[in-house]
């Protein structure tokens, strides 16, 4: 079946139509920062941005904070009150390929490693509509990390900019089904498809930041005890949570109870291995020194995740480089990890 296309000026109408069936999310700056937000029924200015959102789409599935349950202390122990069932069916519009890949990476933890009902209930019913990038940023390095500015692999539908229209690639059965029920779309011509092909190539070539990850797992393994290297690498880091909390593949969370009199709530909220308290225990903190925490962050993404799931937990979205207060650059760090022979000395 031939691909469909949709006019750029018809996007608002399309989202309107999908709003009947889904809670539609799209990139927005309404809150004061670029993030995925429930679509307000009119704003499509994000079509003109080319920078990715500051807050990654993961925030919809693993929110910065959520209530896990409430509890009351009764005579016979605690009464647990689960949260209301999540009935929303979400459609996330305008997901960039790097973030879509990050969702697939998060699924490995929240579905394969263990089943997290909170994450999965939101994730399973959601549809991801990807938006191909036309102007990758200086910090983007997706093409080195297994994806590309127009990669359709991890979304249900993919939109490719072909001038006045977007070509719609139907990727999954879910995506196909949605398109079949959507009205007002036009059929794409051979010419449109050629344009899309051209657009993909152009965008691909605009990603100038490259990272060679060949053998990185082994290099990190060999450099694990290279304290001098890690101290140097960590020197300028100020141990904030930006690069982890806002990384689309980071998933660490903290659990806290809040209790007032006999009633309480259990919260889950984002946490970061960059914080000294993350590993604090009553007697000991195995990552008291900053360099150990920086090492953890790098190794988790580039060594441990590959060991467990055979994939690097970094998609090259560039957020950590762009948002870091000290411009600590993961690509420079990965490149500077000593090769096996050097590390052995």
């Amino acid at each position, binding site marked *: 079946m031939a691909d469909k296309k949709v006019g750029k000026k018809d996007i608002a109408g399309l989202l309107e139509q999908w709003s009947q069936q889904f809670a539609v999310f799209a990139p927005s700056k309404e809150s004061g920062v670029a993030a995925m937000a429930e679509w307000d029924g009119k704003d499509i200015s994000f079509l003109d941005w080319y920078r990715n959102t500051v807050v990654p789409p993961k925030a919809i599935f693993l929110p910065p904070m959520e209530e896990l349950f409430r509890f009351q202390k009764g005579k016979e122990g605690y009464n647990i009150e689960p949260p209301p069932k999540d009935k929303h069916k979400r459609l996330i519009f305008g997901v960039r390929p790097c973030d879509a890949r990050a969702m697939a990476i998060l699924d490995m933890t929240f579905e394969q490693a263990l089943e997290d009902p909170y994450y999965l209930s939101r994730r399973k019913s959601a549809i991801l509509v990807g938006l191909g990038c036309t102007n990758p940023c200086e910090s983007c390095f997706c093409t080195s990390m297994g994806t590309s500015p127009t990669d359709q692999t991890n979304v249900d539908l993919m939109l490719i900019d072909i001038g006045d229209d977007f070509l719609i690639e139907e990727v999954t059965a879910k995506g196909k089904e949605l398109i079949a029920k959507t009205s007002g779309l036009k059929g794409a011509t051979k010419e449109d498809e050629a344009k899309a092909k051209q657009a993909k190539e152009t965008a691909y070539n605009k990603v100038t930041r490259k990272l060679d990850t060949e053998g990185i797992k082994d290099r990190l393994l060999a450099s694990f005890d290279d304290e001098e290297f890690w101290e140097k690498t960590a020197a300028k880091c100020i141990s904030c*949570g930006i690069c982890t909390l806002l990384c689309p593949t980071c998933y660490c969370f903290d659990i806290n109870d809040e209790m007032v009199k006999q009633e309480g709530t259990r919260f889950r909220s984002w946490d970061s291995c960059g914080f000294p308290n993350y590993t604090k225990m009553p007697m000991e903190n195995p990552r008291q020194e900053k360099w150990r925490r920086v090492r953890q962050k790098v190794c988790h993404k580039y060594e441990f995740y590959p060991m467990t799931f055979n994939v690097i937990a970094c998609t090259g979205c560039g957020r950590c480089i762009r948002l870091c*207060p000290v*411009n600590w650059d993961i690509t420079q760090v990965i490149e500077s990890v000593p090769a096996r022979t050097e590390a052995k000395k």
Partner: protein
Amino acid sequence: MEQKLRQEAKALLEQNKVDWIIGFEPGSLKFTATPLITRDKNDTERLIINPFIVNNLADFLTGIKGRVGIVAKGCDSRSIISLIQDNKIVREDVVILAVPCPGLIDLVKIERLAGKDRDELDDISRDGDKVTVTVDGQKKEFAINQTLFDHCLACELPTPQEYDILLGEPGPPAPELEVSGQNIAKLKEALPAERWEFWQNEFSRCIRCYACRNACPACFCQRCFVEETEPQWVMPVPRWQDNLIFQIIRNIHVAGRCTDCGECERVCPVNIPLRSLAREMYGIVDELFSFKSGMDKEALPLMAHYEQEEAEDLFK
């Protein structure tokens, strides 16, 4: 200026006058610089000075062991003095390499003026009172007071007063207090209820990354109240109420130490206008106690000492 800096820094390491040099080197993105912290004299070749050396390097001093040669703009120097006032560092352990600072360029303002992302800009250059931005080969000119950080427009000390080596000629302070205080003035005009709503919205998006605290040289506590569990002053959960309380207590804790360096606001990834709070507190401290942090290394730290009379006043 850069050549002199490199020579001096190298000499300091060579002559074993310092163990570390803290300065700036080119960043990995356009229009950025990044802190360089090194003991290697060869690294000093990479030191730079330009309108993008935004970090307050004094922040690194409390975390480093040994004597340090540090590149300091006016604001950095005030933070260094403030740390000396608080006895966090010893004057003899720092060699201040003073940079007379003409103000730093705020890329957020440039983006707004040029209507383009920083990635799309070819060049930003400054000549005296004009800043020229080149986009697609086209040049656009802006007045300097439109392009500098707010805290730079309020700068009272562009050239460090306290230094060991002065790099270049001191320039005059160019305060544009009115421009720099626009956001705060607007907030002060608003009704309390509106202000409350404003901050509620702002702090709703705080993700508790603590970059504001960690980038702040005045936030030097080894155990921050926010991490205390007994008692638990605020929940570690990013609810707007807890976020706001966190920031208010932080502001109270740095009162008399804050030098209005603007780092808290610059580093916040979700654009919360934190300097409005910090600057207001700075003004209140000055009004109540005629005290400005980081101006005089002999001055006693405002919040860490008291006068006899104050005590009598308090306990009568």
